[in-house]
């Protein structure tokens, strides 16, 4: 695996909470990227990918809202990177931005990474001191993400 800033993984958790009012809130709960200096770019990338996520989710139809696949797959590719999406049943979105040059990353691996993210996220939620909607500061979560990114790198 390349060591230079080749592999950029941006894991962005967006929670869009169903509010009683019509406002839609999508704000990141957690963002991590390697290398860190390009974080702003990934912020933008992830934010724009949210539309694609919503589109995919709504495309699945209301009847399947409970049975739809959590893993959304490749949202859209650009020349530099690929964006993968994953939505939980509580409308928490995981977005992963992977360097396009990292061809060794297969779909299964992406799925497993999302699964790990989801599991870690549920662990964070189990913490009674964590208020849903707060930014995630869990060290266990950080460690898991770090290990995952190191693994990919």
């Amino acid at each position, binding site marked *: 695996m390349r060591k230079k800033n080749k592999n950029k993984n941006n894991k962005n958790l967006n929670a869009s909470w169903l509010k009683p009012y019509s406002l839609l809130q999508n704000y990141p709960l957690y963002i991590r990227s390697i290398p860190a200096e390009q974080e702003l770019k990934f912020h933008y990338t992830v934010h724009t990918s949210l539309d694609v996520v919503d589109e995919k989710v709504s495309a699945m139809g209301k009847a399947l809202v409970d049975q739809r696949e959590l893993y959304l797959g490749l949202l859209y590719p650009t020349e530099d990177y690929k964006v993968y999406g994953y939505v939980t049943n509580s409308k928490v979105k995981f977005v992963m931005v992977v360097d396009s040059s990292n061809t060794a990353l297969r779909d299964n691996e992406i799925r497993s990474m999302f699964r790990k993210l989801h599991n870690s996220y549920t662990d964070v939620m189990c913490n009674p001191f964590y208020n849903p909607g707060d930014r995630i500061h869990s*060290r266990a979560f950080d460690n898991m993400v770090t290990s995952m990114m190191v693994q990919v790198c």
Partner: protein
Amino acid sequence: MEPGAAAAVGTAGAVGAAASAGAPAAAAAAAAGASAAAVSASYCPLPLPLSDGEQQCYSELFARCCCAPATSSSFFSSSSSSSSSSSSSSSSSSSSSSSSSSAGHPQPAAELGRGASLPGPAATAGANQVGDLFRASQLPAETLHQITELCGAKRVGYFGLTQFYVALKLIAAAQSGLPVQVESIKCELPLPQFMALKNDEIRYSNPTELHGMKCQIPYVTMEKNSFKRVDDGEKQQEKMSPIMSPVSSPPSSPSSYQRVPLTYGYGKLRSGMDQMHAAPYETRQHTLQQEGSTSGSHGPKPTRRQTSLIQSLSVEREPQESNSNYPDDPWRITEEQREYYINQFKSLQPDLSSFISGSLAKNFFTKSKLTIPELSYIWELSDVDCDGALTLPEFCAAFHLIVARKNGYPLPESLPQTLQPDYLQTAFLKPKWDCALFDSYSESMPVNQQPRDLNRIEKSSIKEKTDLTAPAQDVNIDDKQALKISSVDEAMPKDLSVDTAAKPGLLPPPPALPPRPLMSQVLHHNTSNDSISQTKLPGQLPGYGDFRLLEQVLLTQIGCVWWNFREQIRKDNDLQTKEQIAEEKDLCQTEQVSEIELHPQLTRTPSQTEESGSPVKKDLPHTQPPSKPIRRKFRPENQVMENQEPSSVSGTSSVPTVPTVKPHASIQKQSSKQKKAIQTAIRKNKEANAVLARLNSELQQQLKEVHQERIALENQLEQLRPVTVL
């Protein structure tokens, strides 16, 4: 005071635990450089000037080290007993203090074999204890070796008074960052600081800070000495105290934490603990150490420490018993700490094999006044299976981490091995049987912890009721439950009373939680509690939603045996009680509550538990027939109390002094019945467990249904939304 001994003792003995992490490192570096010089300098026979405080401190340390027979492995291969003239004479001067201190602390002496209280003429510090003491100074081993070489103990083969004093002073110098040399100890040095030892070494430097508070009267022996030391080395202590902050002795950590909860108003906890641990008190010489620990974390909580110092010290005495052989390991839970944690667990969850839910634990731990991120991290560490609930080992680990954090320990990166649930589980197996005996104590403890007079009323009435029937243990449980009920009842309706009643206690559940009467007597008491809380009921007419919320909350707590009954009766009485509630809205505020009204009032309470009081009573009389007449007797009294209750906003002030007489008599009765009542209590608890298990499953079912309803509703909501909105 002989100059030789004084000098040696002053410097060597004053070495306290390394105030700062940098100090040992610096000392090590300096020591490394100076080691050669130090060795060449060899034994330091110079008489060093010792302040009175230092003299006392060192002599006491020496006395402590001498108390135990010098056996087992130690720094030196042999410890030949030799009498040093200096030691005898200096010990004579300090014998008074040391004897008092030694007498006052049989605990370390017990561990050390209960040797002579005085060093005596053949005074040689036990090498084992000396080694422990030196290791407690948290200096690197290399530095300690240099110190031992320098002080001459190695040369003479034993730790005489002179060598011991020199070593202590060198430790003080090393901790202050000075090189380990003979010249270092010639100047004025602060007292050495030692981490918690298994001998409960006192951190002499710390008490100085606390003496300003002047709340150490109960602990005369050590305090007296500490006072003297304070006068002498106060300036030095001040210098050292700030460095001490991050270093707190782990055994005292429970005290700090208990100090924190004690500040919530547990004036009685101390008395309760006193009753429980009268013996350990005398053995505890942890007062100063506790003070040290308190001062260790003095920065953020000076006031709290002041107010609750006595309480914390009293409480800490018990947990400071360190049976473990790892005095320096802050992550190892001592027996006393474990007992305390188990009692706290019971206060939240009587079933030791069940869970404490996340919300319950959150409310509980939030009272520790740690920041939410820290609590979140502590939860993350302790909830190993990440299920959002804490088993008993997990709870103890979390509690211990909180206590350690409050004492200034930085939180570890990962859960220490000694706090792992599996490790604690095996450790819990054996003391479980001890807990049986502690149960009666623990039950009375939370009872005692209720500072409110009103709770005492409850307790007295409960006690009197149960005198005829249930075993003392049940009574204790009932007391606790009733007290909680009363506190909760009062808390729920009245915001003012909530603050005073429910918040003071760690043990009472949060105001939002309904009380948990355990036995029928408690139910009877609930009625009495209801009567007291009746006046507040009107303000809180619970809707069905509230019931379900409370129900779900109650799921986390093991309900009382008759919880099932109560639920059924509640459902039956919902309509009935609501009507009654409406009627009583006008009447409750008046001071003239008829007994008849009490009955319907008793049947319904927002806390749910009270609601079923009277109907439950009707259904349960067969279990407690003798208590019925007593219950009725108390109703008028409760009426009286209730009448007084509304008159006073806070509720505590209006409590008549009459009930205070009752607790004393009832307490005596209880104590007499506890022993024979434990067995019956065990039997009853087993029966109760079976019923509760059934209840639990039923409630779980209800919870699942509620969850499913909620999910269904949310799904409907999603589907009803416009397509564009996600």
